[in-house]
């Protein structure tokens, strides 16, 4: 009997180790199979399709880069790369710049915190179509926003805040700023207040403490927030059509890709443009993450991220 109980104990310790492999495989299988079937395979399917120009969905014919060459040789299409940067970069930088001081202020919690964060996530729950739709009247030439500015004598003629570049910037800001803000707030409130207090106690001003202590510690987080925000802004679609000018000022890559695939009935070309979009994003994100790893190597050593 004694032997059995000892035996049972060892089995409990040893058994999981043997069973784990099968358990893991079985438990992961549904999610893994799904991601492979619906994400990896379509990706490869698309890659193959984009390398076989033509309207056929069967990817027949010779392997060629004709779709990509066609895109870059047609100024009417390739100028959308530059246009997309002009749409995506300013609003990303602005969202980050405005989130940092706000998150700094809020880092130790404030009154009405739950109420404020609830209101901030409202646009995330409304969705991008609804945000664009509700902008149309409010920011329109005769909308409340322009009416208010005119009543305050700040402007004489109404500003073109919708159906313009500004419309897309505002839509993207409303849609994505809360995300950036809450992310940076997360990093900021994760910094141990002891570091800040030590710096202040040693005689550094609040300004100096921010730049020497807090900034290096949140920089990795800021880089991630920048990447995620940039990637989202770079693929703006519904608002570029609804509150932008999709034929010139906001003819972003996603609009061009969509038109190629659905309006020109050329999914092969549309997929190629979507991949161009993905590749550009990949390059930008890699560059930012590389810069991040260079810049933060020293600060990580001193990091007391208050775990």
């Amino acid at each position: 009997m004694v032997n059995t109980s000892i035996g049972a104990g060892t089995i409990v310790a040893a058994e999981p180790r043997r069973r784990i492999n099968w358990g893991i495989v079985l438990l992961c299988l549904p999610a893994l199979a799904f991601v492979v079937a619906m994400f990896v395979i379509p990706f490869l399917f698309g890659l193959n399709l984009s390398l076989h120009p033509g309207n056929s969905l069967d990817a027949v014919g010779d392997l060629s880069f004709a779709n990509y060459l066609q895109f870059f040789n047609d100024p009417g299409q390739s100028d959308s790369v530059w246009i997309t940067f002009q749409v995506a970069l300013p609003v990303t930088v602005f969202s980050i710049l405005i989130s940092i001081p706000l998150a700094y202020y809020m880092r130790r919690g404030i009154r009405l915190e739950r109420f404020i964060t609830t209101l901030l996530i409202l646009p995330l729950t409304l969705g991008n179509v609804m945000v664009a739709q509700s902008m149309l009247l409010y920011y329109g030439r005769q909308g409340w926003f322009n009416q208010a500015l005119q009543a305050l004598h700040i402007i004489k003629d109404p500003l073109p805040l919708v159906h313009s570049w500004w419309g897309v910037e505002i839509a993207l800001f409303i849609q994505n700023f809360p995300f950036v803000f809450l992310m940076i707030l997360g990093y900021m409130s994760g910094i141990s207040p002891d570091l800040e207090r030590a710096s202040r106690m040693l005689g550094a001003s609040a300004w100096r403490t921010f730049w020497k202590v807090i900034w290096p510690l949140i920089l990795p987080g800021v880089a991630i927030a920048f990447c995620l925000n940039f990637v989202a802004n770079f693929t703006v679609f519904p608002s570029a059509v609804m509150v932008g000018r999709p034929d010139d000022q906001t003819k972003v890559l996603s609009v061009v890709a969509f038109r190629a695939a659905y309006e020109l009935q050329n999914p092969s070309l549309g997929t190629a443009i979507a991949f161009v979009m993905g590749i550009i994003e990949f390059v930008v994100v890699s560059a930012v993450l590389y810069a991040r790893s260079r810049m933060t190597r020293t600060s990580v050593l001193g990091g007391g991220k208050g775990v």
Partner: protein
Amino acid sequence: MATTTQTYVKSKVMGRPAFSISKLAGQVIFYGAVGFFVINLLLMVSTVVIDSFAQSWFKTLLPPAFTTHWYPDLADEHNMTQLLGNTFFVAISTTLIALAIAFPAAYVLARHQFRLKGLLYGLFLLPMLIPPLVYGIPLATMLIRVGLGGSLVGIVLVNLIPITPFVIFILTPFIEQVDPSLESASRMLGAGWFRTFRRIVLPLIIPGLLAAGVLALVRTFAAFELTYLVATTGSSQTLAVALYGDASGAGIRAHQLVNAMAVIYMLSTMSLVVVALIFVKPTQFVVSLKNR
């Protein structure tokens, strides 16, 4: 999370500094900026609601005359029952399926260390990080090729792609919080894995499942891009897609009519959000990567 609370308490204990100009300025700027953002947002949404009851609205503070006829007009133009039915069907089935396939994977990620775990993580993270439009066009093309274009099954399938990993990453920390020794104890006392799962793990994880489910529901409800690429037939449209179609085909419809649809969309999603807020913290709507 514990740190945040601790920090908060500490700063209170330390005492507030006496009144100072810079502190007041900080307060004014902070509440001014956040207030400006939030007020604009609320006013934006209000104009939609007001306009949907307006006969016409030009250059005035409020429309001169009100009417309710846009709503019956909307019902004439769209099959609203079908639209609402599609939207809720897609949102609910996507959520349930995502929970079912995400839970085991989240359990493994929370409990086990193994080779290739990093690879698995990366694979699940990718669909969340890559914007839908990048993989959406090849994916929709493939589904159309397979014959699922314009079907609700196809729409549920595409929406599962970003939602499943989203649910995995919400559930993982919840599972990590359940003490593994409870499971060991149950197993040692002779319960099989299924019994342990049903009587020990599941009850403890229900808050996590609720949070993940509600968040997935709200997100799927508002999801546009992927649904739009696959919903090629009128009968498979969801509210968000129909709203986009009505709004971007400008000049055809009165804006009041489009806004009436927007109000219905908003009422539906707001009802979900109200339910959501009972179960989850608002910040969970954003999956923060800092926990990883």
